[in-house]
C-alpha cells in the first residue's frame, strides 16, 4: 500500500495537480480580453509588467499594502498560515529524503523543531481563521460550508502528519492517512478555489496591469497599495 501510494499514485497526483494548475494559469491569461477588461495589455506591456510586479510584491509583503497594515492581527494569522503551509511540506526532512531517493536531489531541510513549530502554526492559525469566520459578522455572512471543507482538506495533512510524527496510535495508519490527505489536498488545488495558489498571482498581476496601464501607470503615477 505504502509503496503504491508513494510510487505510481504519487506521480499521478503530482501530474494532475501541477498539470491542472498550469492549465488554470494558461486558461486565465488566454481568457483575458483587452476590450472587455478595458486594459491595453499588449500595447503597453512594459507598464503592465511594472504594475503587475508592484501589485504582487506589495501583497506578498505583510507591510506592503495598506490593507495588511490596517489589520495586523489578521495579517499575522494569514501569513503564519500560508508560510507554514508552503514551507513545511517543501522543506521537511522526510519529504526531501524521498525526493533524494527518487530524483537524486533534495532541497534544504528544516530542523525537526522548526518543522514541528511550523506545523503547529498552521493548525493554530487554522483554528484562529475558523474562529474569526464564526465571530465576525462581516466574515460570517460570506462563509459557506465549502470554505470549511477547504480548510479541513488543507489542515488534514498537518494533523495526520503530526500524529504520525509523534507516533501516537498506529503509526502505519496515520502515515497512510497523512499521505492520502496530502494527495487529496494536491488533487483539490486545480479544481477548487485552492487554485488561488496560482490564480492569486494571476489576478494580482491583472489588477496590477490595470493600474499600471490605464489607471495611472501611463501617467507616471505609482499606485500605492
Amino acid at each position, binding site marked *: 500500500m505504502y509503496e503504491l501510494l508513494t510510487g505510481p499514485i504519487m506521480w499521478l497526483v503530482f501530474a494532475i495537480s501541477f498539470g491542472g494548475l498550469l492549465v488554470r494559469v494558461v486558461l*486565465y*491569461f*488566454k*481568457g*483575458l*480580453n*483587452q*476590450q*472587455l*477588461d*478595458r*486594459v*491595453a495589455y*499588449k*500595447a*503597453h506591456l512594459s507598464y503592465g509588467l511594472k504594475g503587475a510586479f508592484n*501589485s504582487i510584491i506589495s*501583497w506578498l509583503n505583510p507591510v506592503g*499594502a*495598506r*490593507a495588511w497594515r490596517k*489589520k495586523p492581527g*489578521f495579517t499575522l494569522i*494569514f501569513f503564519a498560515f500560508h508560510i507554514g503551509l508552503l514551507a513545511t511540506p517543501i522543506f521537511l526532512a522526510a519529504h526531501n529524503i524521498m525526493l533524494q531517493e527518487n530524483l537524486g536531489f533534495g532541497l534544504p531541510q528544516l530542523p525537526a523543531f522548526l518543522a514541528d513549530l511550523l506545523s503547529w502554526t498552521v493548525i493554530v492559525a487554522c483554528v484562529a481563521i475558523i474562529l474569526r469566520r464564526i465571530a*465576525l*459578522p*462581516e*466574515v*460570517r*455572512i*460570506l*462563509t*459557506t460550508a465549502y*470554505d470549511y471543507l477547504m480548510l479541513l482538506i488543507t489542515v488534514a495533512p498537518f494533523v495526520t502528519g503530526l500524529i504520525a510524527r509523534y507516533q501516537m496510535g498506529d503509526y502505519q495508519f496515520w502515515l497512510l492517512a497523512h499521505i492520502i490527505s496530502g494527495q487529496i489536498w494536491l488533487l483539490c488545488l486545480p479544481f477548487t*478555489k485552492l*487554485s*488561488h495558489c496560482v*490564480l*492569486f498571482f*494571476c*489576478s*494580482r498581476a*491583472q*489588477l*496590477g496591469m*490595470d*493600474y499600471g*496601464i*490605464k*489607471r*495611472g*501607470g*501611463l*501617467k*507616471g*503615477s*505609482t*499606485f*500605492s*497599495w
Partner: protein
Amino acid sequence: MPQGKLCNRQPIKTDEQLKLTLSDKSGKQYYAEMKELDVDTNALWATIQKTMKSRIKTWLEICAHCGMCADSCFLYQVNDCVPEQVPSYKIQSTLGHIVKKKGQVDNEFMRHCMKVAWSQCTCCNRCGMYCPHGIDMGVMFSYLRGLLYSQGFVPWELKIGSGMHRVYRAQMDVTTEDWVETCEWMAEETEEEWPGLTIPVDKKDADIMYTCNAREPKHYPEDLAEAAVLFHVAGENWTVPSEGWEQTSLSMFAGDWECCKDNVNHVYDAIERLNPARVTGTECGHAHRATVIEGPYWAGREDGLPPKPYIHYVEWLAEALREGKLKIDPAKRIKEPVTLQDSCNYVRNQGLKDVTREILSYIVEPGYFVEMAPNKEHNYCCGGGGGFNGIGLYREQRNVALRKKMDQILDTGCKLVIAPCHNCWDAIRDLEEEYEIGIRWSFLKPLIIGMLDIPEGMRVEW
C-alpha cells in the same frame, strides 16, 4: 406583462419616448411596470457567456470570503456595518447568484439586484485596493449594471439619462444650436470685461480642444465663461467643437454600453475633424473616466488611448500655473484652512493625485491646506458617485452615504472644500443642505479667476 410602455428592454431612442418617460413623474408608472417585467433569462445567460471572461469568472471563484473588503467600503461603514453591505457579499449575492443559476432568475431577484447595484455600490473601486486577491467589486458592479440595463432593470433617471445621450448626444436636452448659442452668448457677455475674449467654435488645428459637461451650458453657463477667461488669460489657442463637446456619460452609470460607445465616438469624431494638438475636459470626474480612461476601449482602440492626448482640467491648470501662463497674486491666495476632495474617477482611476496638490501649492497660503484622511487613491467616494446623486428612488440611502464625506471634512476642521469634480461638488452641496455643517465648496475655476495676477489692460474694471 412581458414589457411595459415605459419600462422595457429597449433603450430610449426617440425624443417622443424620452418625453413620455420624463412625463411620468418620479417614475411612478415606470417602477410599477418594472414589477411586471419579464426576465429574458436565455438572453441574460447568453450575454454572460459571451462577455464574462477569465477575469470576472476568477474573481467570483477565488474570493476567499475573508471579509477584508468590508470596511474598505464607505457604505458598509455608514450603514452601521451591517454585513449585507460587505462588498463581497453584495456582489456574490447578486452577480454571483445570477451566474450560479445560469441566468435563471426572476423579476423580484432582478429588482433586488438593481437596488444593490445602484444604491449599495457607487463603483468607486476602493474595495479592489483592499482585497488580497485584487478582486475589484466596483468593476463587477459596472458589469452587473450592464446586464441589468439590458433587461430593463435600471433606475428611471438613468434610463432617461442614457436616452438623452442617445437622442441629444448629451446628458441633457442641449442641441447643437443651444450649445453654439450659449458659447456665443457667454463670449459676448464675458468680452465686455475681458476685451478680445472669444469662444472659438470649430476652429481647426488649435492647440487645445475643450469639452465639457452638458450641465454647464444648460444650468451654469458661467462655468463655460470661466473656462474661456482662463484660456484667454493664459493665451491659449483653443476651440470648442460644435458637435462632440459633451464629455459626460450617464450611459456609463446606466450600464448602456452601446450608448457609451456612441458618446465617445462622437467626441473622437470631433477630435479627428478639428485636429487639435490635444484636448482638455472640464472639472468633472466621470466625464474624464468615460471619455479618456474607459472610452478608448468602448471605441475599440487598440492602444487604449484617445486619438489625441486628452488631459483632465486639473492637468491643464497645473501646467498653466507651473509654466507661468497663469499667475497668482500671492496676496489673494487662500488664507483659511482648506481641504481637497480627491475624485475616485481620476485619482483612483488615473493616478492624478499630485497635480491637484500642485495647484493647491500655488493658490493656498502655505500651512492652510489640510489633507483629508485617508486621501489620494485611498480617499472615499463623495457619497454620490456612480449615478447615486441623481436617483430619486434611492435619495434616502444617498443621504446616509454622504455621512462619510461629512465626517472626513469635519475631521479636517476646514470650512472650505475644493471639489474639482461635478459629482463630488453636487454631493458636497447636498451634504451641506442635508446636514448643515457650515461649509463652502468650490470648483477650481472661480477660485483661480479670483486670485489671478492680470496684466494691465487685460481686464476692464467696472
